[in-house]
């Protein structure tokens, strides 16, 4: 197969039948629509293409503007990029560092919104839409506003493609379960399914209110989304991030589907909703969820919530068994005389930027993090030279000196660190 343009590869994704040991349902077959097979990796590739396709001739002269924190931004940027434009995203929702890094890498301009004001000013609109409109008004004719939360093309592309593909592949659908973000993909897909299977039960998945799941909103936030229509859903199910991640891992490990936390949330919500219904059924039924994107985007998010999943056996470190003794600590009151008498090598353990600003005369800079690396492997110091270690408050320097003493180095630490030195009005110099 040869594609003429990357956009030709959007859509036509397969369905995967999820195994019973993942969902545990006896009478319901659960299918995942593999939207992570799209060229840029998510269901939003369709959304972006659906919205921008009618405006391709305007790209090149106009940049795209949107409030998106992830997949939509990525897809909009890619389409804009191949037509000679860029995306500017105005958002306060980028909470996953990888998403920000990838967007920066591919050329998206990210503008963060100011936080909610605590000093209440009744005249302040405090609304992201207001900022976008200001930006557009100030730069007339330079922006194409894709407006994914209100743009009906977002719904339509999923009606035209996602929903149609599902019906073509498996015919009747009894349950359709979608994560609610802009609600466009769930709405459009479900509308198409409904035409074919009028009795389909449509369920929306949202995050619990104090929680955060990428790509979907919580119930209160959903009420502010333009495309959201509460009457369309039989039920709205809340899930939390921890359970969603557990479900995601089950799907990854059992079925080999490398899907992300949003898919985990849809899976978890489906099982919660379908479990009881499943026991009352005597004929087989079919349910469909959307596997929106892949897991690799969300490593920092997952690490934050499930650090134990990344636990590795810890290697032995130089400071594991160092006995702390005050015998290496030198009093700042008599330090000048001691230096004069012993001419030590003075090693400052602070960061270079701090060392550059101000330091003890004749000292050299060996940042603690670097020394830490070295000490894990070897001892770089000679044994016939007195060394005075200096850190901010005399803690790290004492640890290093105590350790080096066990290696027969004549190591000392400045008690109270450079703060004590300064408080004693001892001379400091700076690199200009």
């Amino acid at each position, binding site marked *: 197969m040869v594609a003429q343009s990357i956009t030709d590869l959007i859509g036509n994704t397969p369905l995967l039948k999820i195994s019973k040991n993942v969902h545990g349902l006896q009478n319901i077959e659960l299918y995942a629509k593999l939207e992570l097979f799209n060229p840029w990796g998510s269901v939003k590739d369709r959304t972006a293409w659906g919205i921008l396709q009618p405006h391709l001739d305007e790209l090149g002269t106009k940049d795209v503007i949107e409030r998106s924190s992830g997949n939509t931004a990525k897809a909009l940027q890619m389409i804009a990029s191949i037509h000679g434009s860029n995306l500017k995203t*105005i958002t*306060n929702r980028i909470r996953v560092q990888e998403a920000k890094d990838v967007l920066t890498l591919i050329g998206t*301009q*990210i*503008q*963060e*919104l*100011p*936080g*909610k*004001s*605590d*000093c*209440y*000013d*009744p005249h*302040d*609109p*405090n*609304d992201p839409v207001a*900022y976008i409109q200001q930006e557009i008004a100030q730069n007339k004719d330079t922006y194409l506003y894709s407006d994914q939360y209100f743009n009906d093309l977002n719904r339509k592309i999923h009606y035209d493609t996602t929903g149609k593909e599902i019906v073509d592949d498996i015919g009747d659908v009894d349950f359709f379960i979608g994560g609610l973000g802009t609600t466009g993909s769930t709405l459009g897909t479900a509308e198409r399914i409904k035409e074919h299977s009028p009795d389909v039960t449509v369920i929306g998945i949202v995050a619990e*209110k*104090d929680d955060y799941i990428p790509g979907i909103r919580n*119930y*209160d936030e959903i*009420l*502010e*989304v*333009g495309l*959201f*229509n*509460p009457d369309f859903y039989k039920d709205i199910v809340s899930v939390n991030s921890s359970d969603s991640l557990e479900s995601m891992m089950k799907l990854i490990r059992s079925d080999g589907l490398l899907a992300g936390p949003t898919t985990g949330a849809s899976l978890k919500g489906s099982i919660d909703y379908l479990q009881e219904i499943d026991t009352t059924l005597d004929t087989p039924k079919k349910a469909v969820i959307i596997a929106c994107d892949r897991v690799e985007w969300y490593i920092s998010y997952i690490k934050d919530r499930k650090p134990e999943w990344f636990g590795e056996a810890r290697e032995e470190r130089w400071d594991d068994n160092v006995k702390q003794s005050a015998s290496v600590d030198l009093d700042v009151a008599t330090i000048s005389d001691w230096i004069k008498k012993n001419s030590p090598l003075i090693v400052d353990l*602070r*960061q270079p*930027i*701090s060392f550059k*600003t*101000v330091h003890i005369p004749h000292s050299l800079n060996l940042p603690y993090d670097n020394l830490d690396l070295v000490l894990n492997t070897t001892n770089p110091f000679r044994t016939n030279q007195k060394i005075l270690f200096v850190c*901010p*408050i005399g*803690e790290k320097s004492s640890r290093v000196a105590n350790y080096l003493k066990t290696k027969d180095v004549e190591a000392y630490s400045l008690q109270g660190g*450079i*703060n004590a030195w*300064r408080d004693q009005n001892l001379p400091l110099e*700076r690199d*200009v």
Partner: protein
Amino acid sequence: MYTLTPIIHPQIHKTLTDKEKMRELQNAFGSPLNLIYPQIVTENLKQFYEVFASHKIKGEILYAYKANKSTAILKELSVTNCKIDVASEKELQQALSAGFVGARIEATGPKNRAFMRLALQHSAIINLNSPSELETMLELREELNILIPTPVFMRLKEFKSKQTNVIQKDVKFGFSINEAKNALKTIHTHKDNLDFIGFSFHLTSTSEKERLVAIEQSLYLTLEAIKLGLDPKGINIGGGFSINYLESSTEWNNYVSAIKASLLDPTKPSMSWNQSGLGLWAENGKIRGVATFSDFYRPYNQFEELNKVLSAELPTFGTISQFLQENMLHVFIEPGRSMLDQSGVTLAKVGSINTSLKDETVIFLDMNRSHISSIELEFMSDPLIIPSNANKKTKAKDGVFLSGNLCLPHDFICRRKVFFPYSPQPGDILAFINTAGYFMDFTESETIQHPHASKLAIHSSGWSLDEKYEPSLITKN
């Protein structure tokens, strides 16, 4: 039933359970009556210091006096290590007479000549608001022949980060980056007369990201100041540490959802007076607008928030507390609301109960909105009922609205619906918890010649008039 249960400090809980005493005080001093717990302020102060200690950095606390006019709190803090942030001539005079010396006082905000003069004469720290204020201050020093050096902070209004591009709202206080760089030179040429303490900022938003960007900017400029030959003592990261008023996130979430749901579905009972929506409204089935209440529930408190800021990593500088430590810089904070967390209660007498045209229950209290409102923000925690003996405690059927005692339609104490466990009756007292920070007297007025509310200081050995309180470092139980 949508309740918003307040968090109550055990000491406050103990006083409020003595119903006889509360009635006696209310009868003696009228309604509303404010109770201040100065020793709880000291507890908060200690907790802030503990955060600094856990990061092994030197932290200095400047209590933002504007948050409450209480003299007892000033006197209590005068015997601690903390400094004070005053914003007017009168506040400065009060601080001096409560026992703060000039070196422990910082003058902030717009300053008239009298305020500036007195601050200079006492060698208080001047937090400079603009290049023109720097000029005026230098002229005044000369005109009045002030010979002692003046310590100064320079307030910033422009923040740029190498990593994060945040839209900045317009700001009327402070120096832009260029103005700051020029002012550093001016300060340097007056080195013998001016003592540059450092840069300061005060954000109005509670966004952690913005605070980090502002700290990053302050540190860059601090390094420039050092390069110029100045010797800044630290950075002042301002106040705005948010507090948590409520016991339960579930109650809070349910309440906010109920407001929105009632706007979307007019067949549901209204949650706000006249379905005014507390700043929100429904438009084509969607919620629009900006709420006239702040988040009364927060998942973490002011001390955890400070801890998060100090633990944060900045590009170039690394961990903030580590960088401050390495460069021998102090961190100054200016907490107001967060210092006063749990240190005040407002008591109000229930006057009468009316049924509105649309069949809502309206309870009239002997107080008005100016006694509990900062600007126009709604007070979002439920008052406790201190019932009179006549109250039969019949179960409340529905929520009620709490009206003030002004003959004005807008005068509500709670424009939101309040759900009580049983109906308050005339003669009962309602106790609003945690009002000391900005709610109690920030915009209090004597409109329609209702007098200002009285203030009492409640402490471990009894009570006194607020201004008669005498601090002691020995705690008696």
